[in-house]
């Protein structure tokens, strides 16, 4: 940790950054997102396996506009979110100072291309528990899946914590906030809840980087991450695309290619 602290301290000293987004030790054992504005605060900076919050979610905060250069400590999820946000024209090269730590060594990315390379060599292994659970879902009949999801989603309180926690949910006006016409029912009951989660999953299909923040933020313990994960698996199978791995836009559901194999689109 001392290398990280001294390195970030140097950035403050030489005025390369005036804000650093990282983690401190939280009460619950997990890393707690923290915002450092000077060198003296850095003694609380920490980074370990338990630092799982995707810090890329903060990059869109209007409060950050007053800082001229921001540094960010990124885990793989954060790096993948940064790549996907770049592909979607939300981040420019050189806009942020991006660091990660691997095997106690601090890595500073010289540009976004370097992140692309690093991510391709450090893609996390899929979680075996989640794969097993996904297999369980896939083994269910359509009726059983419908019953499962209608029951789970009935408990949704529509706090939209899933949306707020998602680094890829950056629309200035979300479809659920549109009331002329009212596309999605507002009450936290059956149909509206289903509509919201279907809209959310479809909008993230092929864009979700699988960080799991939506599910972690859900106060009702609804396993919503499986919806986007499944859609991503389908997209990977049919189009060979894995979101958050490339700087260039590569988005199955909105990209037109002249050599598309389907006739209807031509």
């Amino acid at each position, binding site marked *: 940790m001392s290398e990280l602290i001294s390195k970030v301290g140097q950035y403050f000293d030489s005025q390369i950054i005036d804000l650093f987004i990282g983690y401190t030790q939280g009460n619950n054992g997990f890393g707690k997102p923290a915002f450092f*504005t000077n060198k003296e605060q850095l003694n609380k900076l920490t980074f370990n396996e338990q630092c799982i919050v995707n810090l890329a979610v*903060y990059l869109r905060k209007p409060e950050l506009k007053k800082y001229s250069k921001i540094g960010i400590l990124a885990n793989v999820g954060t790096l993948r979110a940064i790549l996907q946000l770049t592909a979607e024209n939300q981040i420019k090269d050189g806009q942020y100072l991006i660091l990660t730590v691997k095997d106690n060594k601090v890595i500073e990315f010289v540009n976004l291309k370097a992140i692309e390379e690093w991510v391709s060599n450090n893609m996390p292994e899929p979680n075996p528990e989640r794969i097993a659970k996904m297999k369980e879902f896939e083994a269910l009949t359509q009726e059983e899946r419908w019953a499962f999801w209608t029951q789970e989603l009935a408990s949704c309180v529509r706090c939209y914590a899933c949306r707020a926690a998602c680094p890829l949910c950056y629309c200035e006006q979300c479809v659920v906030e549109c009331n002329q016409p009212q596309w999605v029912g507002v009450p936290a009951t059956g149909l509206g809840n289903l509509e919201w989660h279907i809209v959310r999953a479809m909008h993230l299909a092929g864009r979700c980087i699988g960080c799991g923040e939506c599910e972690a933020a859900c106060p009702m313990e609804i396993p919503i991450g499986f919806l986007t994960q499944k859609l991503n698996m389908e997209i990977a199978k049919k189009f060979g695309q894995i979101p958050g791995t490339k700087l260039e836009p590569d988005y199955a559901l909105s990209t037109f290619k002249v050599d598309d194999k389907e006739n209807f689109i031509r």
Partner: protein
Amino acid sequence: MEYRKIKIDKLSNFINAIIAKNKKLLAPKQKKEKVFFAEIKSFDEIAKNYIQTAFSAKSAVFPKCEELFSYEKINGETVLKNPPPPENDTVVFGVRPCDGAAFDYLATFFLKENPDFHFKQRYDKTILIGITCESGDEFCFCTSVGISPSDTRGLDIMLTKLENEYYVEIITDKGSKLIQEFSEYFENAEKIDKTKYTANIPEYFNNKLVREKLSDAFAWEKWDESSLPCFGCGTCAFSCPTCTCFDIQDEANPYGGSRLRLWDTCAIGLFTKHASGHNPREKQSERWRNRVLHKFLYTDEQFGTLSCVGCGRCSRNCPASLSIIDQVKAIMEV
């Protein structure tokens, strides 16, 4: 106040007897990692060994979505209908003292000035059985907001676990009626001192001093910095036992419809956004400030009571690990 006791093994008989009498029984129930209040059909379903439920039992009297009225067009006439009152009593078992105090606050909010018909319908038929906390965690801070882990405020009946039995305090007429209905499970008892059986919750701040400090804190320059980790998910408000803000929505078709009251949260921008597009709380820090001031200052000015009961849910559930205790302490250090 009257006192009774009930043998530990009789408690399940008492609870099962309530259910057998067709009363709706809400109790803490394990979901996955967390415990939620849910309707149970047997005592065995009640969760054991937990500190606090993820959400309070607020929804028993103030549901996340409720119909205020419905209307129907019949032969050119519009017929209005109030929702029917609940048929049976709802008994909420296992209410923590902080949540009891929260129910007391909800009753003040909804009934004091302009009694709310819908809240009253439910509240009058809801009986709260509290339970003294034997332990707390690092998020509990009821003692800092003037509540003790064995407080009876807002509850109808209070249970305290002793060595071989539960000590029963009967606080209200509603509570007394319920105990009389099931009197065979209870024995008479004398008043005892509950201290020995009550959790020791540290006092992190003095709420009187906090209130004084906050009355001058609107322009505090550190609201921005201290709320930076907040990404506006609203979980704090949705899981808060005293948050009462709601949204009104009409669901209609050409033949009829209904007006609904839904939970809302000041943590999201849409909450204060005007039709003009202007938003008086443009930034997350302004929303966070509103939350802190509302809990520790505004309701005290309005009703003479804080609207934070120290249950710790906002911090326990916060995906960004923001702590209300740390926030108040930081303000006190200014």
